[in-house]
Each structure stands twice: as C-alpha cells, then as structure tokens.
C-alpha cells in the first residue's frame, strides 16, 4: 500500500527545516494527520457546502487499498462526518447543483468504472451508466457458440486470443478479457459455464470528470457534468434528467479536463490526452481539435485566465495560449506529482500550485515562483479553496496516507521575484563620470573632424602590416628557415640544442620523421658558421634512413676559438642530396664561451 511505498523517500527531511522553511511562514498549520489512512488524488477531492449550512466540507473519494475498501469520505473541518462505500475504484469526484430547490444543497458525483454515482444529502441518489459499446461480432458469435456448446473452451480461448492479438484488446468485453486471464482448463470451464448464458456487453470506463455551468455562471447555478471516457468520447450530461446532452469524440483517451463557459451559451473543454497532445472542444464541435503537441507526457492541466498550463513528466511547467502558442516554460527541481489552481479571491489573483516529488509545493503566478511550501511527505492530492468558513485553505493528501490542512494567512502577500519587466535596475544607476578636460575636448573635436581620414590611415597601416607579415612568411617558407618542414614529401622536425659552457660545446641535433608511413632517405646535416670563431668536429653528418615517428639524435663538438668573449650564430641545415635549398633550418644562438683555463 501507499504507506510502505512512501516510507523510504523523504524520511531524512527533518522537521526543523520544514518549520523554518521560508514559504511555510505564509501558511497556518490548521491540521496535520499523518495517519489519516487516505489514498487519494487531486481529482478525487472537492470542497462543497453539501449540507447547506454555510460551511464547506471536504469530499474525498478514498481509493482504499486500490482493490477494496473504497470509500466516499466527507470531512467537516477536521472531523470525518460521513463514510459511504464505493463499489469500484473512483476516478473522479465533483460537486454540482442539480436543481434550484431550497435549501440549495449540491449533489456529489463520483465516477467509478462505467458508472457515475450521484449522492444527495450524503445518500445515494442516482446511478448513471454510460451507454454500452458495440460488441465485436466475432466475439459475440464465439460466445453464442459456446452457449450452445458448439465449441469447447480451448477453442474459445484460442479464437478470443487471436482477436486480442490483432490489436483489438480494448475492443474486447470485460468477460472475454477475464476469460483470457485464466490459466488452467478447469477454471476456464467453470467461468465459461457461469457466464456464457448472460448477454455480452461491452462497457467503457470514465477517465475524468468535471462540471460545466448550464445557463448562468453563478457559483450555485445548475451545472452539467462533463465525462471523459476510455472509448475516447466526451459526454455532457444533463443534471436533472441525467440524459446525454452532447457526445463528442476525441482522438485519444482524455486524462485531464479543464472546462469553462456555459453549456447553453459557449463553452470550451481543454483536455490532455494519453497520446501527449492537448485538444480543445467548443460548443457545436463533433470532434476535438488539436491545440498543441507536447514533447513529454502531461501530468497535470490547469487553466488560468486564457492560458493553459501543463505540467509535464520532464519536470517542466509549460504555458500555452488557447491558440496553442507556447508562452513560457519553467524548469522545476523535481518531478511533478499533482497540480491545482490557487484562486485567491481576496487578493484577486490566480496562481498554479504544483506539488513536487521532493515534498515541496510551488506556487507560480505566471512564470514567477511566488511561494513554496515544504512538507514532510510527497503530496499526491492538492486542493485549494473555501473549506469550512475559510476562503483560502489548502488541503493536501500525502503518499503515506496523511491529510494536511493549511490556511493562508490573512495578511500574507506574494511578490513576484522579478515582476519588474524591462531593463534591470542597475541600468538606471548613474556612473561617476569624470569632468571633460580640455585635452579630451580637443581630442574629441579632432576625431570628429578628421574621422574619415583617421579611419583611412588606420586601414592603410593595417594593410601594410599584413603585407609585411605575409612577405616575411613567404620568405621564411621559401628559404625553409623553419624548424618544421613544410614540404609534404619530406615531413621532418628538427630540434637543435647546445650544451656546455665552453670553449668546447656539444651540439645535439634531433630529427624526427613526422609522416605516418614514409621513411626519409638520403638526408644530410650541414652547418653554417663563422670559421674564424668556431670549429666543428663534424661539419657534415650523414643521416641514415629515418623511420617514421622515431627520434634520432646526432652530436658534434663545437670549439670556440676566440677568447674575446664574442658569440655568433650557427645555422643547422637538413639538406637532401641533389637539392640546393635546405629542407629545414635551425638557428642556434651560441652562448659566450668561457675562456680556456690552463691548469
């Protein structure tokens, strides 16, 4: 059950951090029952003055364990005043006025399976059944044959399974689906014998429920019920006779509904569907029109004014216009569990409340976060409205089955963090600009008068600089003065260094073939130097075959013959036999030699 599931998560949230959470100070903790054993969602919660005494009650359809113990619970304040058992899993709860009789007492509608149960004065009043769907003729035929014992259960099973595998799983009746779930033959036989006599019916299931005012917009005006079904249809039901007023089709199964307007005048139904698209329906339409497609599955849909706000599985809150134009996106710190609209009547604004998986509830007015509440548990159901005699009450049901009631403080104000549109405030600040000096003014005048010629002069110099650079580069390339070969046929890298303090130095030349696979052959290293100053041990080094990638070092001794403390450069050339220009060149600046010390 939900109690176990929620235990591990958020258990590390300590209470003091919740108490001191900034957003929580705007709310009064009216009630917190962590063990209310409620298992419910936002769609199964409603506020309504169901006894007509001026105090709004909280109506909750409790999903129980999910298989049994489903109940319709009514809370007056914090006390449970009524419990009614529900036969099947509830999918939605709404309250609506079905007549104009005095005293004005609204009815409660509970959607459950293919039925809509209506309660009045907390007593069952009416059960509306959705019209049955057509049964697959093959399936009907199979069961007819089974009834006349023409086919045995294994054949029946195989044939039904083949229909199912054709992709018509949703088109089968509940009876066939249950039959297909049975494993052994005895069970199948007893099931078939028990049920084959009855008439085969295919029913759909209510997926979502909302109300729509019929002809006047007052809060206590008569409302129609809007029902979305698994068979991709939207029904509008008459509240007095419970007849179907309108039937409209949707391309996919509707999951969340948002209804506005008046049935008799003009209305609009916005729905998010299981295929991740948002559709709209208006009065007179037979088929829903695509409004926009989402790139993630919607987990909540609310309307604020003319905007549609959708919470998505990718932790975003997205806002669209009714025309389907995206207005903004807010990225949330955690996944969304549920959403509700916060209509603050006293202050006259509407905001969206979003419950997150990290146990927080964020309140967004437009795209600005105006408040965040921290709770001890993950919120699964969220409802803001008039509860008891308090206009702005927030009721939350938690994953572990708790019930929390928070009341907004009377003098709580919400501020948009960045409600100031346009340039940031820092742009308005005056800078401390120093006074204009005469030099500055003269310079400015000169620049203003000779702007064109200054620009031309600058461009002219720039071109000359570029030209000089290019020439020097070409020259360097032509004479191979660079230590890295630019000739693609001889990819060689040269590094030369001088060691020692003199008068005898060691000159080390290292060569590396930088090509991938091509060996270099027939290379020679020669040196160019002032013969009066230096004498080299080897003036020419024959380079063996250079294997690609390896580093070869060649050494020669250099003796400085002068003791006057002067130095010169030695150029190292790598040349190829039969070519006049060297492949690469290195220039070595010789250090000043120490004088010979005769010991």
């Amino acid at each position: 059950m939900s109690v176990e599931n929620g235990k591990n998560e958020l258990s590390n949230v300590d209470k003091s951090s919740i108490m001191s959470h900034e957003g929580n100070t705007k709310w009064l903790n009216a009630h917190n029952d962590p063990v209310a054993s409620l298992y419910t969602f936002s769609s199964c919660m409603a506020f309504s003055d169901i006894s007509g005494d001026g105090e709004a009650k909280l109506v909750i359809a409790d999903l129980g364990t999910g298989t049994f113990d489903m109940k319709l619970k009514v809370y007056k304040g914090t006390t449970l005043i009524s419990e009614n058992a529900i036969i099947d899993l509830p999918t939605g709860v709404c309250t609506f006025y079905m007549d104009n009789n005095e005293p004005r007492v609204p009815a409660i509608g509970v959607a459950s399976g293919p039925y809509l149960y209506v309660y009045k004065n907390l007593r069952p009043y009416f059960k509306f059944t959705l019209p049955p769907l057509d049964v697959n003729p093959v399936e009907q035929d199979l069961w007819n044959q089974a009834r006349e014992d023409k086919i045995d259960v294994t054949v029946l099973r195989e044939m039904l399974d083949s229909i199912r595998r054709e992709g018509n799983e949703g088109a089968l009746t509940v009876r066939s689906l249950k039959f297909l779930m049975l494993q052994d033959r005895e069970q199948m036989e007893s099931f078939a014998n028990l049920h084959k006599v009855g008439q085969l019916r295919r029913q759909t299931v209510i997926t979502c429920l909302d109300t729509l005012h019929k002809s006047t917009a007052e809060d206590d005006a008569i409302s129609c019920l809007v029902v979305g079904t698994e068979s991709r249809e939207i029904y509008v039901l008459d509240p007095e006779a419970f007849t179907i007023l309108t039937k409209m089709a949707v391309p996919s199964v509707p999951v969340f509904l948002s209804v506005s307007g008046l049935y008799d005048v003009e209305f609009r139904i916005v729905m998010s569907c299981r295929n991740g698209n948002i559709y709209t329906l208006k009065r007179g339409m037979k088929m829903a029109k695509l409004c926009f497609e989402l790139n993630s599955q919607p987990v909540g849909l609310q309307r604020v004014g003319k905007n549609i706000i959708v919470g998505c599985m990718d932790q975003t809150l997205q806002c669209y216009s009714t025309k389907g134009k995206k207005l903004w996106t807010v990225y949330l710190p955690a996944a969304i569990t549920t959403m509700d609209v916060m209509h603050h009547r006293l202050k006259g604004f509407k905001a969206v409340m979003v419950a997150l998986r990290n146990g927080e509830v964020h309140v967004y007015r437009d795209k600005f976060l105006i408040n965040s509440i921290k709770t001890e548990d993950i919120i699964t159901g969220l409802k803001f409205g008039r509860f008891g005699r308090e206009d702005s009450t927030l009721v939350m049901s938690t994953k572990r089955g708790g019930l929390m009631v928070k009341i907004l403080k009377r003098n709580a104000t919400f501020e948009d963090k960045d409600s100031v549109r346009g340039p940031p405030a820092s742009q308005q600040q005056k800078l401390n600009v120093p006074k204009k000096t005469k030099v500055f003014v003269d310079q400015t005048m000169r620049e203003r008068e000779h702007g064109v010629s200054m620009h031309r002069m600058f461009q002219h110099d720039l071109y000359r600089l570029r030209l000089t650079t290019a020439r020097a580069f070409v020259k360097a390339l032509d004479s191979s003065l660079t230590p890295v070969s630019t000739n693609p046929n001889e990819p060689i890298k040269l590094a030369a260094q001088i060691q020692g303090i003199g008068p005898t130095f060691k000159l080390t030349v290292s060569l590396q073939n930088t090509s991938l696979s091509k060996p270099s052959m027939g290379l020679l290293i020669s040196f160019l130097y002032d013969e009066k100053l230096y004498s080299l041990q080897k003036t020419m080094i024959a380079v063996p075959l250079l294997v690609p990638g390896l580093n070869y070092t060649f050494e020669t001794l250099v003796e400085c013959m002068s003791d006057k403390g002067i130095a010169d450069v030695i150029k190292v050339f790598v040349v190829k036999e039969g070519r006049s220009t060297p492949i690469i060149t290195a220039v070595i600046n010789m250090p000043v030699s120490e004088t010979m010390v005769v010991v």
Partner: protein
Amino acid sequence: MGLLDYFARLFGSSKKEAQVLCVGLDNSGKSTIINRLKPDESTSEDIVATVGFTVERFQTPGVRFTVFDMSGQGRYRNLWEHYYKDAQAIMFVIDSSDKMRVVVAKEELDMLLDHPDIRVRTIPVLFFANKMDLRESLTSVQCSRLLELEKIKNKQWHICASNALTGEGLHEGVQWLSDQIKL
C-alpha cells in the same frame, strides 16, 4: 481614590464608563454574546453576520460598557486595529467547536497583542470560549493552551467557556471584566 468616590460608587450614582472592543473570527458568536448582554427589552431576535462594526451599550452594576462589535469576516478584520487605541478592554471570542480555525484565531490574537497600540498597554483581555454546548467543542483549558495564553505577560486575562444562546458563562466573564475596569 477618596472615600467620597468609594461611597459614590457603592451607591451607583457615578458609574465608570468603559469602551470594550469585541473581536474574534467570523461565526464565533460575538454579536450573539453582546445581544445576550444587552438589557432584555433591546435584544434582537435574529443575529445576522455583522458588516463593518456595530456599537452596543450595556451596563453592569458599577460599569457602563460601550462595546464595539467588530465584524469577524476576513475582509473586515483589518478594521480592528483602528479601534485599538481607544479600547479600554478587549473581548476576544473563540468558536471552540471549530478546531481547524483555532490557528487562525491564534494568528489574529498574536497580531492584536503585537500591535503598537496594544503591546505596551496593560488593558484586560477577556476570552470567551464560545459554543461550549456543542459536543465537539474544546474546553476553556484546551483553548487557552492552543492560543498560548500563558505567554501573555503584561496584561490581565481571563478565559471562560460560554454559551451565548443560553447566556451561560457570560456574566462570569463580564463580572471579571468590570472588576478589572473598576480597579
């Protein structure tokens, strides 16, 4: 206070005047309590929700009360503070059957006691834990604990359970209040 005054008061010839501010949440029974305290000939049959405020007068032996019966509805609660300055006593009515809104009453009380016109003054505060007849109602002890009345240090306060429909508990409270004012 001279001997003459004492005698004058004893014979009720010169009564003390006191302005009392009656506040509390909506539907807590403020107007009903005041209606019950008024002389029998001027009580009204139906009590409707107060809009803004009403001024009522009644007297006990010794004190002539002028009560400002403030509306408790959320949108009128910001009127309260305009009358703090002239109030010589506060009457705070709590709906003891409405457990959920005790926090709201506490919030309003805390704001009242923290108001500059009230904070430094030593005026008496009388609490009525009203609707004591209802089954689910809180006792006066529970009310005082939930409202943290023990934290009120610089004022005389008194809480009594009451039932404004029958008048039970009202005179005890008003007696305490007139004793406080006469001091």
